[in-house]
């Protein structure tokens, strides 16, 4: 793999960044919060993104997609991270969309993937439960066959962008014990189905991550029975790398703003950027961010080019751990270097810090990823 953007990718990156940055983007995020938007994003902007083709980036052209890969998807999420854009690109396109494309029947693709690409519908993935410490194999929600159909029972937690979705891809157990990797099947549960209740919940970043209560709700099987685990795991990896792209955009933006502040703010009769202690900390952040750029590129290209599962896991775990650590480091340092003003609600840095914490924990924190990396590498 080559760790460099080709001309088409460079152009896509520029278009994405231009789009995400127009109209005072961070202010838009603050406005959504102040309006207590339950959706947490703007349907109008989402629709524009669909018009630009972003919703079809990774999908085959015969489905209406652009036939690109994760190398391109991370350019989109990176630009959204720069602007703190909250639209459901990762949850609906990369996460749910990948599962439908990988496992769906022709009918399921027509029913869910094409409308996703067109920006008309979106699914959210309900794969987690409470207190399962990021482990996707830890699944207690069950699915039973009743009268030729499937009925799902259990509570899924932290369903990203789950509120007001048109349906959910739900992981449920069809055999095995609570923590077995085998025996998990995937189902599509349509919004409005009897026995499916999704309650709104806001996180510290003002986006929604919902609880989905299933009380015998009807689900449509996606893929084979008992074999959903590996596909789910790969889809999580794709969503994770897209999230790494978002974190990279965030750290780049928060860092740039901080460097700018260091060059203008004066204390003790000098620009604070002349203080060597701050200079060294800034230089250390620069190095960490350069590493982040490399691991995001590396992980995205590995997903596109390499079929080896343990190599895939190692690259993805590495990227997520590093981006998690760096997004916390850089947003904390940004706040500290901005001083008191950084703590105020009217200043943007706080919004980056809040979103950073959510990203850090989504799809597993650094400690979880180190464990996963070690397992994949056989130690």
């Amino acid at each position, binding site marked *: 793999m080559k760790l460099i953007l080709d001309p088409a990718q460079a152009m896509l990156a520029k278009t994405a960044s231009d789009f995400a940055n127009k109209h005072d983007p961070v202010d838009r995020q603050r406005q959504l919060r102040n309006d207590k938007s339950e959706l947490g994003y703007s349907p109008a902007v989402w629709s524009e993104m669909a018009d630009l083709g972003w919703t079809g980036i990774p999908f085959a052209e015969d489905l209406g997609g652009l036939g690109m890969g994760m190398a391109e998807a991370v350019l989109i999420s990176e630009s959204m991270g720069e602007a703190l854009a909250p639209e459901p690109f990762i949850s609906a396109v990369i996460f749910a969309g990948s599962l439908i494309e990988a496992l769906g029947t022709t009918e399921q693709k027509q029913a869910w993937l094409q409308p996703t690409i067109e920006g008309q519908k979106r699914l959210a993935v309900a794969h987690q439960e409470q207190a399962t410490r990021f482990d996707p194999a830890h699944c207690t929600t069950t699915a039973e066959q009743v009268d030729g159909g499937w009925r799902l029972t259990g509570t899924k937690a932290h369903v990203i962008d789950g509120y007001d979705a048109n349906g959910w891809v739900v992981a449920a157990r069809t055999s095995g014990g609570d923590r077995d990797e085998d025996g998990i099947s995937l189902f599509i549960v349509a919004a409005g189905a009897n026995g499916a209740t999704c309650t*709104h*919940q806001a*996180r510290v970043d003002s986006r929604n991550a919902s609880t989905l209560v299933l009380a015998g709700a009807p689900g449509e099987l996606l893929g084979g029975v008992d074999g959903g685990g590996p596909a789910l795991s790969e889809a999580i990896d794709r969503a994770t790398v897209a999230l790494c792209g978002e974190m990279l955009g965030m750290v780049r933006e928060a860092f740039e703003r901080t460097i700018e502040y260091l060059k203008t703010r004066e204390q003790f009769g000098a620009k604070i950027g002349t203080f060597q202690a701050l200079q060294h900390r800034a230089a250390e952040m620069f190095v960490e961010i350069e590493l982040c750029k490399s691991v995001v590129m590396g992980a995205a290209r590995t997903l596109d080019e390499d079929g080896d599962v343990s190599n895939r896991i190692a690259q993805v775990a590495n990227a997520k751990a590093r981006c998690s650590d760096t997004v*916390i480091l850089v947003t904390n340092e940004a706040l500290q270097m901005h001083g*008191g003003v950084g703590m*105020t609600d009217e200043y943007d840095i706080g919004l980056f810090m809040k979103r950073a914490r959510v990203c850090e*924990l989504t799809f597993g*924190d650094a400690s979880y990823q180190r464990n996963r990396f070690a397992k994949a590498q056989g130690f």
Partner: protein
Amino acid sequence: MSDLETFRSETRSWLEANAPDALRGKRNDPEAVPWGGRNPNYKYPECADWLDLMAAKGFTAPTWPTEYGGGGLSREEASVLDQELMDLELPPGLTGFGLSMIGPTLLQYGTDQQKQEHLPNITGGKIRWCQGYSEPNAGSDLASLASAAVRDGDEFVINGQKIWTSGADHADCIFMLTRTETSGKKQAGITFILVDMDQDGVEVRPILLVSGASPFCETFFRNARAKVSNVIGEINGGWTVAKALLTFERNMIGGMAAARTSLPDLGAEYLGRNDDGSLADPILRDEIAQMEMDALSFGLTVQRNADAVKSGKQPGPESSMFKYYGTELNMRREQLMLSIREQQGLGWEGDGYSTDELVQTRAWLRSRGNSIEGGTSEVQLNIISKRVLGLPG
């Protein structure tokens, strides 16, 4: 029975006889602690009585001299009082910047007249104070402040702006630094003065923080007035007073790191335990152990310093260490608690989160300011390197 044990049993009896039932068990409820002032607004009406009862015994300022409404107690007795309050889970009789900051400063630098005028109002909870130090262009570089005080007969006329004035929207009076001389060394033209905020020339605007709360304000002065007799220390000599007060402030903020929620218990709740009783996540267990050990080490250091002060050592610039390490400890602790709670620690609102979880999200956000307020961590490290270690430049 030793004198101390006699004091303990008498105090215990008095507390049991007099403390309002409504406040028992409320020690950890921030809204159960009286802040006093001209217009107090209490969640529990009993707070007003509690303040008066405690003040009458001198228990709002236990170690201050009795002539100013203090208790005249020894450190040991004050510590016994605190233990007994804790045992009954009672809040203190009063809190605020009068007791923790301007009071100690007046005891050290005030004239007899100033002490008699202000200290009884502090111990009695009659006047609530706030601090006017930082300005928009004088944060870490405090001495470059610009708020002007110009002499007019026996008064000063004050114009300018303060920021980060903690609790200014509830305060009656402000102790503030003003510029009374613009030529010469910037530290040498500062005057420390007390100003009544109940006048037209003072306007207060709360600042909304990332945590969603507004503990700080911007405070504007437009031809506000204060008597010259309210200058503490010399005119143009306020920097000395200001530094002494900063020591009190550092001790107060550094001391906030005291343990609350037990981390091992929190770990057991969220991570579970192995058969041998150890927490199920070995990495987080290791981090919790590190945190507990850091807190133990810090506590021992606070104690060692207190023992040294008791035997005659003067507090010096090393108090910067307490501010620095205490706040960093508190911030790391809040971050670790989030890691333990995992995604349950991310909640802002909704049924999926317990009250504890929602409170902690905000406490974590609030904690991010600890290393900025009261002198940034960087300023504390500067003080240590220059004034303790004697490094040049």
